[in-house]
């Protein structure tokens, strides 16, 4: 039997059967004897002074076990840690103000928790919320980003002189000099507004304290079970080994579940230890709209300097970033915006300045794309406007500015979110552009289709955008691979899964190295008792970083297998083949041993072992890249717009994507489909609408529209593989890619569709909606 290629194959998923039959464990499914249930009383004010909280009546209600306010937390009350310290940017201003477990003297956003009720059932806990009296003096709310900076504006955090959370400038080259040389300088203002991550599973935390074993078990819908364990141990004065955090199946992450030490996440474990009974809290959808982190509010004033041929000489961008009421996640989002603007293009001179602003709105942390959308939107729209002014084709102006294959690695001279210089490891952009143009039949559409359909009165348009995505950042992940005597391979790793197919793609990597069936590699993930070192699933890094750790651990086990098998089979290692779950001497079918049998020999019950050997066929390995790997892609779409109703129908959607070496094309396609759907929602359906008092006006799925099966088109995908030199697999991340360029693409295609009718129409904002697009069409008449 010859070794079989597993990496790169369309392998069906190991985890599906459990999910399809309803057997998979999600946090809200945890049911324990004597379990208590939690409901939170939350702020109804965006901004108010909290004078008094009276929970006497609630405490007296039958079925209520405890009610906690900030005053009841004692020393346990403390602001959360700064999760992501900002990179060392020269001249950086950064004010860290992190969330508190329960509001003590001030309410800073609607939905901020004030009191925690623990009762015999969730129904009773919610009943008791009505018994709590809150005296609060409303304050004017900080909502609009520009107003937030005005002299005399109300302050979200009064110990600071203003609402500035951070200010940073990053530069490459000399923009002012480039501007002087420019043939044209094009300036625009761009707006991007907030959306919800809207995982279909809301957050949940369940916890149980075992007083005999002195062990705390926490089930948490987190993307980072290990850091949660470490943080809880520290907060609760326990050893890390006394705390087990399990992120079982998680029903979609999309970023907000990487936010750590949410109030509920630190309070539920604390309560279970005080009360001696298991405690569970499950967020409801309305709470999710207020209390789960959000993203995307930015305003950019940007300009591009171009020469006569459309070559970009430089870009300057000054933007405001809404960080919400607190900034525990540091500057990841605005730095991603700043870095991703450079895209796949050669931009020799760049100046980017941002101000992050506290507002009385839900906390901002990364949501699928994590600020990259904004950067792509700004550069792509600037290129579109430059193309129009210079009368250059939109695809052509992109081609003229793309980085060439021989320019890699490309050092962009500014710092990325991981504090490393923004360096592109590898890429091959122009062929991807060509492929996308070909797949969507760009030229024929422009020359034939569009004129023909326009003549028939239709408003059809095409868009094409390019983007890069910094993925797979450090610090590190680990994995442990064990061959068991039954022949199954056990793979434990720290990163949890929220649907990305880790049970399969990680298994493929190990299966290829060890020559076993993918179904025989049992992946255990997201349980700190099984693997206790690592950070989490974020920044499109699972396959790159944890996948590489799986590869490294499997490679070490392979060495152990070869070593022992060589001894047992009395054959040199070079003659051994691992395939079909066996080690075989090449060309001699009679001489072989099953991996399970070899595992038994590696862990004998009696007798002597060779000196220097370790028991078992097991190895643990870690992988930490110096820096992230840069994925890239081109999206193209054709739309049909009804100018009377401003409805947009997406006729075709093409994605050419390069995430390096693909581990499982089926899974990669699925990631892209979902990302595009998220991006379409972001572009045309989803917007969190806050009024000037900081009240969220559409906090339900009745009013906040997620795209449905009739809104999302069939996405045609093509893969290109430019391997990353930064990891042994050659992989780059893909989890966020689909969602990143969609807003820019949508704006361009819709503008093109209406171009002959509303020539002055310029779309400089996302999200749109039929209403908003209608207004823009009217304004452009």
């Amino acid at each position, binding site marked *: 039997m010859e070794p079989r290629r597993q990496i790169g194959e369309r392998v*069906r*998923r190991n*985890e*599906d*059967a*459990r*999910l*399809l*039959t*309803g*057997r*998979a*464990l*999600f946090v*809200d*499914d945890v*049911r324990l004897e004597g379990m208590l249930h939690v409901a939170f009383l939350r702020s109804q004010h965006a901004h108010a002074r909290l004078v008094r909280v009276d929970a006497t009546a609630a405490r007296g209600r039958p079925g209520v076990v405890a009610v906690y306010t900030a005053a009841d937390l004692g020393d346990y009350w403390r602001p959360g840690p700064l999760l992501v310290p900002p990179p060392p940017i020269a001249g950086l201003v950064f004010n860290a103000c992190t969330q508190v477990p329960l509001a003590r003297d001030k309410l800073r956003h609607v939905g901020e928790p004030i009191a925690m009720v623990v009762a015999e059932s*969730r*129904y009773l806990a919610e009943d008791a919320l009505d018994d709590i009296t809150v005296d609060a003096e409303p304050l004017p709310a900080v909502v609009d980003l520009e107003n937030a900076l005005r002299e005399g504006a109300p302050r979200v955090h009064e110990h600071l002189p203003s609402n500035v959370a951070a200010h940073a400038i990053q530069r490459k080259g000399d923009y002012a000099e480039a501007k002087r040389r420019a043939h044209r300088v094009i300036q625009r203002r761009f707006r991007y507004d907030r959306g919800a991550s*809207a*995982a*279909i*599973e*809301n957050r949940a935390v369940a916890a149980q304290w075992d007083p005999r074993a002195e062990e705390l078990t926490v089930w948490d819908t987190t993307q980072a079970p290990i850091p949660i364990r470490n943080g809880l141990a520290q907060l609760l004065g326990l050893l890390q080994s006394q705390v087990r955090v399990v992120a079982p*199946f*998680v*029903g*979609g*992450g*999309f970023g907000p579940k990487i936010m750590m030490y949410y109030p509920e996440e630190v309070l539920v474990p604390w309560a279970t230890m005080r009360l001696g009974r298991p405690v569970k809290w499950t967020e*409801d*959808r309305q709470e999710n709209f207020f209390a789960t982190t959000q993203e995307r509010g930015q305003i950019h004033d940007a300009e591009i300097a171009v020469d006569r041929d459309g070559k970009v000489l430089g870009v300057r961008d000054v933007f405001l970033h809404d960080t919400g009421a607190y900034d525990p996640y540091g500057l990841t989002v605005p730095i991603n915006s700043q870095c991703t603007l450079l895209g796949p293009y050669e931009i020799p001179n760049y100046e980017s300045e941002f101000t992050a602003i506290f507002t009385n709105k839900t906390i901002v942390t990364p949501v699928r794309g994590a600020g990259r959308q904004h950067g792509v939107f700004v550069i792509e729209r600037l290129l579109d406007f430059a193309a129009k002014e210079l009368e250059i084709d939109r695809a052509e102006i992109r081609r003229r500015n793309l980085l060439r294959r021989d320019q890699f690695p490309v050092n962009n001279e500014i710092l990325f979110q991981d504090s490393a210089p923004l360096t592109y490891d590898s890429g091959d952009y122009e062929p991807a552009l060509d492929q996308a143009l070909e797949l969507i039949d760009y030229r024929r559409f422009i020359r034939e289709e569009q004129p023909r359909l326009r003549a028939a009165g239709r408003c059809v348009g095409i868009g094409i955008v390019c983007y890069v995505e910094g993925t797979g950042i450090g610090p590190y992940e680990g994995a442990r691979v064990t061959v068991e005597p039954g022949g199954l391979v056990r793979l434990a790793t720290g990163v949890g899964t*929220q*649907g*990305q*197919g880790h049970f399969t793609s990680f298994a493929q990597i190990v299966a290829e190295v060890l020559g076993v069936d993918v179904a025989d590699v049992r992946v255990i993930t997201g349980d700190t008792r099984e693997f206790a070192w690592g950070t989490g699933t974020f920044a499109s890094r699972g396959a790159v970083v944890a996948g590489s750790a799986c590869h490294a651990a499997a490679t070490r086990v392979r060495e152990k297998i070869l070593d022992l098998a060589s001894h047992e089979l009395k054959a040199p290692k070079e003659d051994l083949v691992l395939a079909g779950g066996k080690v075989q001497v090449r060309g001699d079918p009679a001489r072989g041993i099953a991996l399970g049998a070899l595992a038994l020999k590696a862990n004998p019950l009696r007798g002597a072992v060779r000196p220097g050997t370790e028991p078992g066929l097991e190895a643990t390995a870690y992988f930490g890249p110096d820096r992230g790997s840069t994925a890239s892609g081109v999206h193209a779409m054709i739309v049909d717009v009804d100018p009377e109703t401003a409805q947009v129908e997406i006729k075709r959607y093409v994605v050419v994507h390069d995430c390096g070496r693909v581990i499982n094309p*089926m*899974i990669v*396609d*699925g990631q892209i*489909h*979902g*990302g*595009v*759907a*998220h991006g379409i929602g972001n572009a045309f359906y989803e917007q969190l609408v806050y009024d000037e008092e900081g009240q969220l006006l559409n906090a*339900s*799925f*009745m009013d906040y529209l*997620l795209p*449905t*099966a*009739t809104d*999302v088109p*069939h*996405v045609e995908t093509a893969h290109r593989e430019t391997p990353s030199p930064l990891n042994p697999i050659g992989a780059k991340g893909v989890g966020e890619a*689909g969602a990143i360029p969609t807003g820019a693409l949508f704006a361009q295609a819709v503008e093109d569709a209406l171009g002959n009718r509303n020539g002055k129409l310029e779309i400089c904002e996302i999200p749109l909606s039929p209403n908003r697009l209608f207004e823009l069409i009217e304004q452009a008449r």
Partner: protein
Amino acid sequence: MTAIELTVNGDAVRRSIEPRLLLSDFLRNDLGLTGTHVGCEHGVCGACTVLLDGEAVRSCLMFAVQADGHGVTTVEGLSDGVALHPLQAAFHEAHGLQCGFCTPGILMTLVPFLQDHPHPDEREIREALSGNLCRCTGYQNIVAAVRLACDGASTADR
């Protein structure tokens, strides 16, 4: 408390419950059938869809007492416990699920739909799915799974 009698996945069930108890909470908490998921509790996401006398209903929009005297089927009742139901198998083949949280509700929506429409076209499939929210898949491979379940001709790549 109110006494109710119903059948759930073919088994007779008798319980005494509060009239305000949602059917979704009854199935999950009282009966331990946690395959039925709760995503919004206002009838939009469809994750909690179950069959009531063979018709798809949102269990978060019903009180358990309203199921008195009726037959409920949940995702746990879809396969025989050995082999996957053909629709489940098609979802596996076509990668019609990612995080899997919305999946039980989608399966329970599609089962009666496919009984009434054994050979739907893509538009009909998308219409049938339009009351269920999925944030992971972009629906594409769910559509492919349904086509595969119907005629066996389709693949995830169409």
